[in-house]
């Protein structure tokens, strides 16, 4: 049995919230550089260059790369031999979000669905806990902006539509999203499970580093094929026309009910923010 004190969790979540919003991952920067090589549209190239510059300014000056610093989505991967000491795990995460969004001058973007009254401190956080054997404790902070989240969808397809049907849904989703989710995007696809599980798979697919292959070679083939289809749409950077609409398609899949074919598409904007830490 290993003990982790909630104070350490608060501090870690606070720092991850700030770092995720100010330090764009090297994998995303490399994907921008690669996109710049392939983009043919002058406007598109200009935009990609500015995104690289924007990421550098954010990192150097410690200000958020995007003003929408997102809903704080936190993944907790923990071993069942870990004991949380000194208080509640959930409250520690909420407190870390509160402190991070305050101390990092991050925007508070969470409100009541009907009155639109802002909660004032960017809580609640969305917390996904995955309990596994062992004594590890890993936190992933993935702030998610509204523009790209709004373009995401879950659907329950008829099993008969097969791979082609899923592909059509994914490509159509990117097409209809057009410029709204701040292309170049990353397309997270969750296939299988239940209604809510498909959405979670799609979100988790976004956490895989850009440029890393899918562990399942069959899915890797689909990712390559679907990315090509998406990039034929011509939407381009910021939707102003171009070759690079998306930087990657990432798929996660699991078995589903014999009557169902759930599919979720979670669109991630170019501010593809996530930071991890192990305690």
């Amino acid at each position: 049995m290993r003990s982790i004190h909630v104070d350490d969790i608060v501090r870690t979540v606070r720092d991850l919230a700030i770092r995720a919003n100010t330090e764009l991952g090297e994998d995303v920067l490399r994907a921008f550089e690669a996109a710049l090589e392939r983009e043919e549209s002058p406007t598109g190239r200009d935009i990609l260059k500015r995104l690289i510059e924007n990421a550098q300014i954010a990192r150097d000056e410690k200000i958020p790369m995007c003003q929408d610093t997102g809903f704080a989505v936190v993944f907790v991967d923990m071993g069942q031999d870990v004991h949380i000491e000194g208080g509640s795990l959930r409250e520690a995460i909420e407190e870390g979000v509160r402190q991070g969004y305050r101390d990092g001058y991050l925007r508070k973007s969470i409100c009541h669905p009907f009155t639109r009254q802002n909660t004032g401190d960017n809580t609640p956080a969305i917390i996904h806990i995955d309990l596994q054997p062992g004594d590890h404790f890993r936190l992933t902070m993935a702030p998610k902006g509204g523009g790209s989240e709004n373009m995401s969808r879950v659907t329950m397809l008829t099993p008969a539509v097969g791979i082609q049907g899923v592909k059509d849904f994914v490509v159509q989703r990117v097409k209809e999203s057009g410029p709204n989710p701040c292309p170049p995007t990353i397309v997270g696809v969750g296939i299988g499970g239940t209604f809510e599980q498909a959405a979670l798979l799609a979100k988790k697919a976004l956490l895989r580093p850009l440029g890393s292959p899918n562990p399942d070679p069959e899915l890797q083939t689909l990712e390559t094929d679907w990315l090509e289809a998406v990039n034929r749409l011509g939407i381009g950077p910021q939707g102003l026309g171009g070759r690079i609409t998306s930087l990657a398609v990432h798929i996660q899949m699991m078995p589903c009910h014999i009557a169902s074919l759930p599919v979720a598409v979670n669109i991630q904007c170019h501010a593809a923010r996530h930071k991890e830490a192990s305690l």
Partner: protein
Amino acid sequence: MMPDAIVLHTPLSEHDVTSLTIGDRVLLNGVLYTARDAAHKRLVELLQSGGPLPFDLSGQVIYYVGPSPAPPGRPVGAAGPTTSYRMDAYAPMLIRHGLRGMIGKGARNDAVKEAMRQHKAVYFAAIGGAGALTARSILSAEVIAYPELGPEAVRRLEVKNFPVIVANDVHGGDLYEEGVRRYARTA
């Protein structure tokens, strides 16, 4: 190479905007007003009830933005555009009352485009998500209305060489449609 940028100063004249065509890169100077969903709702309600607006619309440019909080010593935090379609319900009325330009991200609906054509207004795209870079062009920010709306309050921004791209011009051009048409490949 990109063509050189056109430098403009607000308030914009009818001549300023009629000379612009889609794809033009523009550097805006002077004053911009910020407003998002909640502020638009209030501005339109004021116009409907005949009340005075917190600022004179004529020739002005509204920037759809909700900046992140200003760290000490800075006028604003990150300040990139928000998605514009949520303002489509309100924009035609503001355009009819003299609004000359809007800055946001994403395409507009037909009613907004028609209002822009009729009343000579333009829609500029700023780079969505480039909030840190965009903030560099903002010299000062002052909340002039609805402070209770927080990031959604109406701010008066002084800007210098604020970079935008003409996405909809007064001639009916739409870069979102034409740009995509140019680069789309059929299967």
